[in-house]
């Protein structure tokens, strides 16, 4: 009793390869998903043309969240950009702080202290876990499993508590400054972090039982939303989206930054490249991050400077130069392209958020022939955050 689509209704292709969709024919319907969609994909929308309950064409629309950060930064001093960058990605802001700080340091000829590098790595892994937790809840929710989000939000909140005691804030941490980090670990942090990690492991076991060993979830995710490995290069697919297709791309390994070369881990990969595999890769990536945090806390130096000597930040000028700094965030390769012209302001900041490629071009390709009810699950499975599309 399987579903057999009726292809007789499907639009024909025109000579240039585009579909011949005659909206007046009554065969097609325009359907907007978003921008006020309760799913985790946030403030972007997809303009769907459906035939029956099947998507024949999808166009992505972004811009609902445009705040012009890159432009704003051109009118702010280097230190004044520091509190702005985190806003470019709400659920995992720390990558912006790190990439921006590293870019400024490189162009200014500053070396951040070793201890600061360890703390930066710790923060980035904590942020990665949080980002995945948000994803897992969203992915399950898109297929109707509401309870998973409650569990992952709970452990994410525990990690936010750790963020709060380490950085002084829960969401926008504003802790990784050009030059180093603001402060060291608070008293008793290791113990509380270990408790949080244990609680997280316990919750992940529950999540595995209820989400990944679940006929409903499997029915809707296995074999659905496949990213053809051949597309990876063409679309610039990175991160778990690429790793689930069997390509072990991971900037942490490929071009180690901070202290990743001193840590023992292997990139998580999968083979089937469908929604289920991508979710599973991310779930296992959380376990890697938990292990990394334990390694970091065991190995990190506990004394030493936290900030390199920086010039007076009020009139910090950086010589002419340009650089691209990249790192592996939970969604793939995150990069900052920074151009300086010798003044006290960045000449150009360009943020390479992985969501840009995943959520716009790739999604338009993948969404064709997908059932309307699977669109939300597919969008979530690419793990995209609209703010980093619209810097």
């Amino acid at each position: 009793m399987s579903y057999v689509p009726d292809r007789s209704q499907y639009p024909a292709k025109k000579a240039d390869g585009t579909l011949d969709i005659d909206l007046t024919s009554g065969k097609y319907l325009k359907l907007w998903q978003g921008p006020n969609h309760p799913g985790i994909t946030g403030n972007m929308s997809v303009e769907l043309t459906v035939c029956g309950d099947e998507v024949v064409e999808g166009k992505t629309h972004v811009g609902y969240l445009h705040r012009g950060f890159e432009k704003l930064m051109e009118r702010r001093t280097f230190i004044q950009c520091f509190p702005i960058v985190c806003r470019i990605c709400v659920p995992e802001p720390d990558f912006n702080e790190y990439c921006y700080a590293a870019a400024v340091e490189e162009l200014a000829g500053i070396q951040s202290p070793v201890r600061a590098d360890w703390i930066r790595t710790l923060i980035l892994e904590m942020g990665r876990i949080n980002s995945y937790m948000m994803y897992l809840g969203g992915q399950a929710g898109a297929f109707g499993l509401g309870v998973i989000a409650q569990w992952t939000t709970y452990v994410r909140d525990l990690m936010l508590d750790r963020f709060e005691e380490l950085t002084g804030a829960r969401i926008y941490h504003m802790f990784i400054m050009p030059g180093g980090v603001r402060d060291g670990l608070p008293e008793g942090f290791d113990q509380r972090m270990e408790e949080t990690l244990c609680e997280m492991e316990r919750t992940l076991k529950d999540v595995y039982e209820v989400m990944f060993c679940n006929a409903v979830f499997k029915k809707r995710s296995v074999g659905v939303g496949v990213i053809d490995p051949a597309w990876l290069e063409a679309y610039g697919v990175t991160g778990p989206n690429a790793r689930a297709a069997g390509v072990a791309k991971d900037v942490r390994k490929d071009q180690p930054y901070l202290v990743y070369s001193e840590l023992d881990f292997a990139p998580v990969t999968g083979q089937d490249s469908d929604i289920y595999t991508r979710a599973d890769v991310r779930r296992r990536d959380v376990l890697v991050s938990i292990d990394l945090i334990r390694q970091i806390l065991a190995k990190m130096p506990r004394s030493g400077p936290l900030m390199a000597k920086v010039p007076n930040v009020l009139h910090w000028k950086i010589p002419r130069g340009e650089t691209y700094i990249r790192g592996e965030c939970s969604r793939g390769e995150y990069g900052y392209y920074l151009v300086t012209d010798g003044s006290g302001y960045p000449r150009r900041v360009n943020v390479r958020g992985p969501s840009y490629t995943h959520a716009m071009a790739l999604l338009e390709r993948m969404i064709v022939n997908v059932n309307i009810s699977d669109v939300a699950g597919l969008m979530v499975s690419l793990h995209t955050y609209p703010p980093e599309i619209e810097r």
Partner: protein
Amino acid sequence: MGVRDLLSPFTAWKNLFRDPVSIRDPLNRAAAPRYRGFHQNDNAKCIGCGTCETICQNGAIDMLPVASIATKQGDSGLRPRIDYGRCCWCALCVDVCMTGSLTMSNAYTWVESDPDAFRFTPGIDKKHWDDEELGYHRPAGHQLTGRVRMHMPEMEAEERIGSFAEIVNGYSVDQAKLEADRCVSCGLCIATCPTHMAIPDYIKAVRDGDYARGVALLYETNPFSGICGRVCTHKCETTCAARHEGDPIAIRWLKRHIMDQVTPGQIRTAIGKPSAPTGKKVAIVGAGPAGLTAAFDLAKQGHAVTVFEALAQPGGMTRWGIPEYRLPYDIIDQDVDIIRSVGVDIRCNVRIGKDITLDELRSTHDVVLLGLGLQLGRATRIPGSDHADVRKAVDLLRQATAGEDFGTPRTAVVIGGGNVAMDIARTLARLQKAVYGEVRVTLTALEERARFLADPEEIKEAGEEGVVILDARGPQQVMVENGKVTGLKTWRVKAIFDEQGRFAPSYDESDEQIHAGSMVVEAIGQMTDASLLGDELTELLTWNRGRIQVDAGGRTSESWLWAVGDMVHGPDVVTAVADGHRVAASIHANLIVTEQRK
């Protein structure tokens, strides 16, 4: 997909038997000790420098006057008002706060129906978290502005005692840039500087390497910039925002650095050409900082200015009082030459009252301005002080500048704890070193060492050069044997002032010492030699405790006669410069008004 996938989801039901994890009372949840909550400001510590306002990228901070806080030296009287509709809690304001007064509480939630309540001045508008100890405070060692002053290279004691060569080398361009980098441009120094120099702007010029701009800024307010760059009392540095948690910016040395980097031609370009001649003639008596500043301003405004100087060269006390190792004479010459270049006619070796009378000046000029300075040393009037070998410091310093041999004593005792005392002690030390090969100078002062009026570095350097400095010693008698001075008898000072705060030293007579010396030098203050006024004019003028009484513009009770500088105000170069500007402006306004009335 198997049976497990059908049954496993039901394990979620085990949560029915777990305690809920949600927080029951989120409003009263305690935030982490480092939490960046609402601001606190210790207004007693805050100096209103506005660095927080400068760094705030949201424009959330406005520096505003506060009724309960008065503006004073080193405190703008403004306090940061924070708009929490704009604040993003990044805490950069806390990180750059120059005094550490601004902190953040860990107040986690605040519910209020009035939106205007979220814009307030921390510490002034009372909030329940004002006394909260937890919250974000700048971590120790977390500095976003430089706190340590660039070391000024200078000669070591053994080297400098051998000559009158300048001690301080001055900053190199790189050193000056690093020092200038520390400035936060708050401008508290501008208010403190008597002549209100554009300090943050010329420091910026140093940072930018734009010395032409720098020297133009210097000459807007101070034609004695080369001199002040070396010997200014730098009151600005006492109110520098950086001094609260580090060393003040070396403002004086940065001024000197600009002057060291420019040529006289660049200076003349910077100050521009004088205005068209007005036909008015001004006579100025005394070519010191006050008189020459007034001359510079008036000449630039087109008046014909003639300065009469009794001594052989212009500069006043900067030349005849300050020793060459602190202020080389060519620096004075350079500053004076610039003043001459705007058309000021300086006539030296002309003593008013002897070579020309004051009446003659009055009859040939529209205005006569007196800038006589304080050239007479005060006397201790202790027994024996009428001996020929009991000398005044100002007289000796004048003779030293002129190159006259006043008979360098083998041993000397200096009375006084101010900069003049240090100057003569160190001058004698150099002369003794040259003549006898060893330094035998004792300096005695009424004050305790910590309360000396001299600059701390002067005291330190004098000590390094071999001057024996004795504090809390009151001079009682100059010891004379066989008609020759042999030393000074002092008692230990118990208190300098009486209970009413009047000057009335009390001594411990049991602690008596005799300091050997074939010369005793008095350096306990100066006064004006106003004898050139003559009896009649002296009688006509109004006097205030030995000083000529003048109005706010420097005019005496005689409408044609004005007075400026040390003879009416306190003794330091930059105050004299400020006074010169003020009086020149007043004279100029007066001359123009008279012109218009005609």
